[in-house]
């Protein structure tokens, strides 16, 4: 009887190890973000003299020049932050609105057909780097370079597949009878869509919307390509702190933390649906 406790103890230990593994990197980052310059290289887990300097520097990047002569960061973090918000929100709205209509058509009438649907999957499955080149050329020609409109359009196009697949899953689950009943009572198809389906499908809209927001907020590659000075989004800014600025560890930790708050909040709002999102609605937890 006693022997059967041993595996349980081992498992408990392993789980603890895994918990530590999961928590440590971020805990270190949080602690680092509050450490003053002198403590960045110390092995202490907690800052001896916690400070908000790292965060302050994010808002007044001129202060960075204490450390390095030249800095590629010329704007406070509020700029990229707001831009990321705007881009993500608008892109999400476009994606879920168009996605909703498409999902409804696909679910009830098979228009667009499975071929188109599969094609939308491709936009997400193929490496974005592979169409980065023409996008850059195309957008520049259209004047959408370094312009948040460009990012908004691009993000809507590349995330709409999530909206379609996730919402199709939700709509498929709604009994068709309700719409048929409404149609028989003389309602027009559009009315049925807005008055019968939309209210019930709202959770689907919320879930896919939040998930798409997450995807748009965290996107780096295209943001790097399509922005320069005016349209810099938060992920780009974060990367600049590491690649262009050098060994400003505390500040890097600070901005990384800042950029994580919103995604983590959203992530926990939809935690039950994360798997559904990442698998395009194929797996419904």
């Amino acid at each position, binding site marked *: 009887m006693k022997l059967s406790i041993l595996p349980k103890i081992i*498992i408990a230990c*392993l*789980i603890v190890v895994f*918990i530590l593994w*999961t*928590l440590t*990197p*971020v805990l*270190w*980052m949080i602690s680092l973000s509050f450490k003053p310059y002198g403590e960045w*290289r110390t*092995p202490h887990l907690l800052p001896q003299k916690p400070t908000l300097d790292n965060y302050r520097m994010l808002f007044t990047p001129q202060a960075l020049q204490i450390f390095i002569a030249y800095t590629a960061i010329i704007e406070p973090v509020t700029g990229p932050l707001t831009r990321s918000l705007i881009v993500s929100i608008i892109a999400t709205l476009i994606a879920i609105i*168009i996605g909703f*209509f*498409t999902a*409804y*058509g696909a679910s*009830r*009438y098979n*228009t667009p057909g499975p071929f188109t649907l599969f094609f939308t999957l491709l*936009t997400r*499955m*193929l*490496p974005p*780097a592979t169409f*980065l*080149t*023409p996008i850059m*050329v*195309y957008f520049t020609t259209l004047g959408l370079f370094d312009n948040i409109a460009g990012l908004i*359009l*691009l993000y*809507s*196009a*590349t995330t*709409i597949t999530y909206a379609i697949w996730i919402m199709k899953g939700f709509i498929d689950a709604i009994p068709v009878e309700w719409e*048929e009943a409404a149609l028989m009572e003389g309602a027009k*198809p*559009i009315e049925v869509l807005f008055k019968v389906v939309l209210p019930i499908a709202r959770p689907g809209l919320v879930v896919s919307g939040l998930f798409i927001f997450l995807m748009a907020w*965290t996107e*780096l*590659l295209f943001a790097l*390509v399509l922005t320069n000075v005016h349209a810099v989004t938060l*992920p780009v800014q*974060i*990367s600049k*702190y*590491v*690649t262009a600025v050098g060994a400003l560890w505390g500040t890097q*930790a600070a901005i*990384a933390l800042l950029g994580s708050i919103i*995604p983590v909040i*959203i*992530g*926990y709002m939809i935690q039950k649906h*994360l*798997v559904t999102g990442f*698998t395009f609605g194929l*797996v419904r*937890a």
Partner: protein
Amino acid sequence: MPEKSPRSVKILATLPLNILLNGVLIVPFAIMIYLAFAKWSPLMGINWWEAPFAAISNFQRAFSDSRFVSALSRTALFVSIVVPLEFMLGLAIAYMLQGEFKGKKYLIALLIYPLMLPPVVVATVFYLFFQPYGPVNNIFLYYIMGERALNIYWFLDPSLALVTIIIADVWQWTPFMFLILYSGLSAVPKRLVEAAEILGASKWRIFWTIRLPLIKPLILIALVLRSLEALKVFDYVYVMTGGGPGIATESISLYIYRLAILYQDISYAAAVSIIVLLAIMIISRVAIYFFIEKR
């Protein structure tokens, strides 16, 4: 529902989508094909639609481009290490979390947060983590190796740099594997597990002979999706190692990015992109045939 879609719905369901996709993605795709067969760079001083025809010279160049080949093989190696690792770790954790216990929901909520972080942030975190005076050197290895630990420069050694990227990816995406496997395993009908219990099977045996086989399709989806995602790896490489030391950790996405942005070698970048696209599509086709045959 009536077979034919009413016109209004049909328009709503297809027109906006078509405008968006065609306008934003399809047109550039056509441009990419054009560019791949032309020779153009913004440094040439002419507009891209005025670029001279270059036949297949870009493609020929790609096949003898050792940097391209090594980027491809390195990315493939990366995927073949990272995905199995994440799968096994995720499976192990799903196995360990099988029983009911207090606070299980909170534990799971805690374990999945890496998925929610922007990859840039994860990259930054591990960049800080593997600094010479970062915790990996300064704390963990210090206890094992003493002073020598401070001389390990993770990002300056080709293999070690790759290891850091692997660790970053595994750290962020193991919870994904875990979640899929865990939700699949939980969905196995309780009756079957009870039947197996009564017949005398141990928890271990039930896991391997009943639960796992029943979630095979799920496992497949998880592996395929994760592999496709891993192929795209960019954020970690860009932020943590910059492809270095030298080009030792340059993934295919980073290489294309550099071709286009750094070297401004647009038409070649386009050609390389097309080759990669074709390669992925062919491999997926082969994989699909392979799996359909298995059924």
